[in-house]
């Protein structure tokens, strides 16, 4: 179709009204590129149709403009809505993708945690050892305190101004043996210092006797602590003519075994 035919055929009118077939549309669009006259004719047709529409104008409600303008002024939202499958997909990967610096941070934290656990374990062991050592040391101090207390008690006995020292000398049966008694004049308490008595055989024990009105009265058993003799308190006596120590079976006897008399004193 030449340009005159295109113009006179009425094809441009149908094209302007979008009533032309696909083939006709292609033909018109090709012609529009080549012939300015055809373009001019089309524009005249379009302008007449535009006027035709204008003649039938209906003014829209005033709010409609704002609706539309506010709708188009949110381009991001619009884009997201239009590209929702793509958008939501990339968003998901964005959520689950961990930045590499976070990975390094996580690794560093993990290493620090392991290090901390090891240090904690080591410090806990040290703490346990130290605690054990402390308890041993405290026990030693307690024992020393006890020993000190015992020693000061002994010293108190010896240095008490009311203490009346009585020396018990060895008998011919035990010439080297010697014992001392501190007899409190005010209270009648009797302390014995058996330090220089010979060691006792198994199953035997020294027993103190006081001679009251010519008769031997039990003064108590002399005990050892870890095999060592210390000054110790015996039974009290208001009056006594003499003190003696015999070796008896462990636990003591009701009457002294005279052939086992080790030391004796004269008051």
């Amino acid at each position: 179709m030449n340009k005159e035919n295109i113009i006179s055929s009425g094809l441009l009118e149908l094209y302007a009204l979008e009533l032309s077939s696909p083939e006709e549309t292609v033909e018109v669009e090709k012609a529009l590129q080549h012939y300015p006259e055809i373009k001019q004719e089309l524009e005249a047709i379009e302008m007449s149709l535009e006027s035709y529409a204008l003649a039938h104008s209906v003014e829209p409600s005033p709010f409609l403009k704002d609706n539309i303008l506010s709708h188009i002024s949110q381009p991001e939202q619009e884009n997201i809505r239009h590209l929702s499958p793509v958008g939501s997909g990339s968003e998901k990967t964005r959520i689950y993708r961990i930045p590499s610096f976070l990975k390094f941070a996580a690794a560093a934290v993990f290493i620090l945690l392991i290090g901390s656990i090891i240090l904690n374990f080591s410090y806990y062991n040290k703490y346990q050892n130290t605690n054990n050592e402390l308890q041993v040391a405290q026990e030693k101090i307690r024992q020393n305190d006890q020993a000190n207390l015992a020693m000061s008690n002994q010293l108190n006995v010896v240095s008490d101004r009311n203490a009346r020292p009585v020396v018990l000398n060895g008998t011919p049966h035990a010439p080297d043996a010697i014992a001392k008694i501190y007899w409190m004049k005010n209270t009648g308490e009797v302390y014995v210092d058996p330090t220089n008595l010979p060691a006792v055989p198994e199953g035997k024990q020294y027993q103190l006797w006081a001679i009251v009105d010519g008769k031997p009265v039990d003064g108590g058993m002399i005990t050892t602590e870890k095999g060592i003799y210390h000054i110790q308190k015996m039974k009290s006596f208001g009056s006594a003519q003499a003190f003696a120590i015999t070796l008896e079976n462990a636990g003591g006897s009701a009457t002294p075994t005279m052939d086992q008399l080790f030391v004796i004193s004269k008051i």
Partner: protein
Amino acid sequence: MQEVKKYNEVELIFLLKNRDQTAFAYLYDNYSAALLGVIYKMLENRELSEDVLQEAFIKIWNNFSNYDSEKGRLFTWMLNITRNLTIDTIRSKGYKKQSKIQNSENTVNNISDNAHTAESFDALGIRKHLSLLKNEQRNIIDLAYFGGLTQEEISKSLAIPLGTVKTRMRAAIIELRKVLTN
């Protein structure tokens, strides 16, 4: 009175291609009434027509990069988008239901709609000219413009051969151009 900025078509197209919202507002101010008139002629339902108009303008904005001035004027492109959306609406199930309800209220609607019809100087003047058109000429333009009909459907509707639709259309539009330039 505030001075209203005017754009020529080349400026307007350039600005819209660059997504200028002020130019879009200008486009709306100048063409919304003409487009709504066409929609309303097709749907005869005011509320629904405004829905379609809104949809059309949003589509025009979103698809503006598709507009090619080599293939036709801006208004023609906008008109065809609008007419296609309107035809889609007519073919939708919801429209058929609504149009039945609407028909019973037609009398009331027509009265209130007249109040909204643009009585601008231009529209009035053009309508005066259009009254000079023969009924036969008006008829074929209306069928093409507002009927949403194809060439075949127009030929059937007017009981004329398919080949005659073109020539009849050309004659009608030549007459339209004549009365408009008088």
